[in-house]
């Protein structure tokens, strides 16, 4: 119980240090912080280091990129969007064409009476493997991602 009390006391002191440092502190809390700093040399030392750090970070700003970056920004986003749509269409078309090609070749090979049985089995296994892998990937991307309720929760 006393440990918990001490922990919550430490937490309060940390918050006082932060709000004092960032100028987001009400007047009554400022007095409390000043009293704490006067009565605790270790805390005063920490406050001094935090103040010096704040002085350093206050002089730093983000490095600005060249101005022309902003002129092309929306164009780049638009191009990437467009290319994304292009890739989806290309992929869909390719899937249909490749599937048709595989189906037509398989029919041709299976109806070939001169081909040995083990080769026919190998061709069938290869086609079946590709189909299983494709369906599995598709199911994962389309369904499991969509119905995973916690997909956006960061663990």
């Amino acid at each position, binding site marked *: 119980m006393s440990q918990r009390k001490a922990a919550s006391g430490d*937490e309060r002191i*940390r*918050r006082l*240090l*932060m*709000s004092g*440092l*960032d100028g*987001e502190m009400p007047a009554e809390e400022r007095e409390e912080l000043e009293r704490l700093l006067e009565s605790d040399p270790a805390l005063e030392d*920490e406050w001094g*280091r*935090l103040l*010096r*750090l*704040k002085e*350093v*970070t*206050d*002089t*730093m*700003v*983000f*490095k*600005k*990129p060249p101005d022309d*970056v*902003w002129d092309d*920004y*929306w164009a*780049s*986003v*638009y191009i*990437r*969007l467009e290319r*994304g749509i292009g890739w989806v269409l290309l992929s869909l078309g390719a899937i249909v064409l490749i599937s048709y090609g595989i189906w037509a070749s398989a029919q041709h090979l299976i109806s070939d009476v001169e081909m040995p049985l083990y080769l026919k089995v190998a061709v069938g296994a290869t086609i079946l493997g590709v189909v299983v892998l494709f369906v599995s990937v598709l199911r994962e991307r389309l369904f499991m991602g969509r119905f995973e309720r916690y997909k*956006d929760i*960061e663990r």
Partner: protein
Amino acid sequence: MERDRSAEIEVSDNLLVLKAQAGDREAFGELVKRYMRRAYYAALGLTGSHEDAMDLSQEAFIRAYRARASLDPDRPFYPWLYQIVRRLCFNLARDRRTRRRRLEEATPWLRDQAGARSSVSDPGCSAERSELRSRLEAAIDALPEREREVLVLKEFEGLRYREIADLLGIPIGTVMSRLYTARRNLAEHLGDVL
């Protein structure tokens, strides 16, 4: 006055979101132009690399466009976009391979205003400030991502505690605790120069 202006922006954000949801790309383009700098600097603060910040902020807009149907037009656009930006940045940071590459190719992402002012009159001081800046960047790079995020939002984006809490969806107390831990870690890293 400031509040009226911010309300005006929000109303028109609203309208742009509705138009974008109806498939109007120009309206979405307007949203991109309005928030590209904020998204870029948010990503820069989280990744520390211009190239990554440019790539991830643009990727965030692309994902926002694809997911626009799920956005509630009555809610502000930027906090929603920021969630996408931070998730992309955190994912990148978790990719150790990319992180190693980034560290090898690291270029400065902070600018020292005070150093820039004093460099003309005192080159020695300028070298010292440059060393301080690179040590600060390295210390920020070494922070855990959540501490780094709060520190960047406070120190370099200049947000108030309430704004950070709203943006991240966490209590103000948590913002202050993370900020304290981040600053204590930075002070330890920079111990001899402070």
